[in-house]
């Protein structure tokens, strides 16, 4: 659909597997369920109603959608240097690079570190305090719900900025719906206070050690976490000049 990338960002085209390759890889390791591939969705057919009534979109077509997988070195640009320094700091003073960082993804010219939840605060401290890293500004937390990524359904994504070095990177932690506990980063980045409350409110991720983890957008007695994929949009039909438009979540969709 889109023409080849023309910008020479740090990421090289060869490093980012195309969907076809990733699916082939996923199929090759079928049965042993590769833990690092984030399965976004399993689609049946191309459009039409869900469940029965396969009117035209041939429900036999099954597509597994996965996120771009781990990148391999060299990551390009300043990414290698930052990851090297982080590895050094974590090995010396922290839990160790291998234990803390699950894998590294470079996509769209952005560096994304997947962090083991239990070591998140140590990684944040290292990123903030080391003079060669100095990610002093956090731009907040956002959650993503991947119901098909079994055992790692809930993701919290942290966006960090180094004003000193002019860098931006992303941390991502994944926890299961059954045990949605992530340590709070408010001790390192006080700004994440409200952002973690919002992520808790919308996704139900529990940030352990947060000074006051209360709902922030929804009323205190609200049941459920609205941004989860299994939470309905609850739209209402709209009537206009006698015709009725169904709510957005009940319309014919393209998968």
């Amino acid at each position, binding site marked *: 659909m889109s023409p080849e*990338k023309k910008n020479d960002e740090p990421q090289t085209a060869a490093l980012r597997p195309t969907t076809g390759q990733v699916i082939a890889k996923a199929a090759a390791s079928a049965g042993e369920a590769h833990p690092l591939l984030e399965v976004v969705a399993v689609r049946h057919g191309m459009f039409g109603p869900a469940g029965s009534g396969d009117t035209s979109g041939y429900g036999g077509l099954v597509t597994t959608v996965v996120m771009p997988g781990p990148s391999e070195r060299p990551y390009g640009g300043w990414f290698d240097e930052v990851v090297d320094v982080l590895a050094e700091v974590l090995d010396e003073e922290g839990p160790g690079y291998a234990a803390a960082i699950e894998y590294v993804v470079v996509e769209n010219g952005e560096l994304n570190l997947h962090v083991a939840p239990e070591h998140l605060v140590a990684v944040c401290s290292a990123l903030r305090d080391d003079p060669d890293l100095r990610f002093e500004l956090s731009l907040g937390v*956002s959650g993503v719900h991947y119901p098909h990524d079994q055992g790692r359904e809930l993701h919290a994504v942290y*966006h960090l900025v180094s004003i000193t070095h002019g860098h*931006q990177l992303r941390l991502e932690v994944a926890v299961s719906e059954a045990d949605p506990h992530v340590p709070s980063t408010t001790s390192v*980045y006080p700004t994440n206070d409200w952002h973690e409350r919002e992520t808790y409110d919308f996704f139900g991720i529990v940030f352990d050690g947060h000074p006051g983890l209360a709902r922030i957008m929804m009323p205190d007695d609200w049941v459920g976490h*609205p941004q989860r994929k299994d939470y309905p949009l609850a739209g209402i039909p709209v009537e206009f000049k006698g015709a009725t438009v169904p709510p957005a979540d009940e319309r014919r969709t393209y998968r």
Partner: protein
Amino acid sequence: MSTQTPHATGALRDDDLDGVPTFHPVGGDWSDVAAEAARLGEERIVVNMGPQHPSTHGVLRLLLEIDGETVTEARAGIGYLHTGIEKNMEYRTWTQGVTFCTRMDYVAPLFQEVAYCLAVEKLLGVTADVPERASQIRVLMMELQRISSHMVFLGTGGNEMGATTVMMMCFQAREDILEIFELVTGLRMNHAYVRPGGVAQDLPENTTAFVRKKMDSVRKYLRQAEDLVMENPIVHLRMKETGYLSTAACMALGVTGPLLRATGLPYDVRKTEPYCGYETYDFDIPTATEGDNYARMVVRLEEVYQSLRIIEQVLDRLDASRGTPVMVADKKIAWPAQLAIAGDGMGTSPEHVKEIMGTSMEALIHHFKLVTEGFRVPEGQVWQTIEHAKGTMGVHLVSDGGTKPYRAHFRDPSFNNLQATSMICEGGQVADVVVSVASIDPVLGGVDR
């Protein structure tokens, strides 16, 4: 028993209150707050300011604990304007998403549109293909929007200090800018004008001349407002040395934008992570060092002059780039019709309608599919920052390769900056709360989304 009405000209005695209707607020957590205060038996007063208070810029609720005239604790309660925009965007096509995100910060809608579209373009991998003229139009619109947003800050801020005249001047300047928006996008706000891949339409004829004329008028009102407030002794008394926030506090609280620059750190995403070609424009980042309410106002006014500088440059470029495309060439992304205003005032596109209805069945199918189904965006996630009038705005998008966003998250600068309410209000006077909150310049539509 006295039946006279209590009034403010004398000391109120207990028997004055006999027979006077009183109202005890209950509900929500308020009963708990009141019960807690009664249990502790302290001589403290907890004031519930908002959510329907004219000085809170919408539906912001402030819980103030006061000791005499001093605020000992201040907490902000938000969520009263939560409309689930992010959730709704997951059920609409990538193009329709613009219509939703523009409604977040309704005082500066074009920033959300540009940030969202830049993020979608990054995911599509078409960032380099967006035509030069589209970026120029985006820069023009964003800088106009920055001025109008700062005008609302100065106008409402002045109004809250009792100076209605300032508001009249600033809103007249804003009105000039909204007329430009109406000319270009058809709407004064909630434009949905910026689209993934470019902008919805090219500028109408003579827009640059119209903008130049309007900028003269904006300058006039700006100068008037500036003359009125900058050396005004009341403004100095109210704003200087109130609401102080240091650079370190800004870093810890993630506070960006004019609040951060008023502490002396010239951090501006337009310079550090340029987008839309900002690196090619000549402008400065104004800063101040005091970090108080007055410094924030000065920084914002200086920014307006820098925006005017950028607008002058971009208008010349727009004159030079007339007739070039404003949308990516990829027909799988760009909508086919270029609308024009018909006799009835509605948008229509006679030539395109003639083609799809009369000559090309394939063009009709393509048009229908592109508008109803939308285009697909490769799977992955992306983070895009821009310099919003109120600070750093971030957009986090996740795509599952489908025709709709899998997740859209907006890091609204007002949402984050409001966290500083406690720090800038506590220890100050009750009257300073209004000025300090105004200096954050929050828009609750963006805060609550």
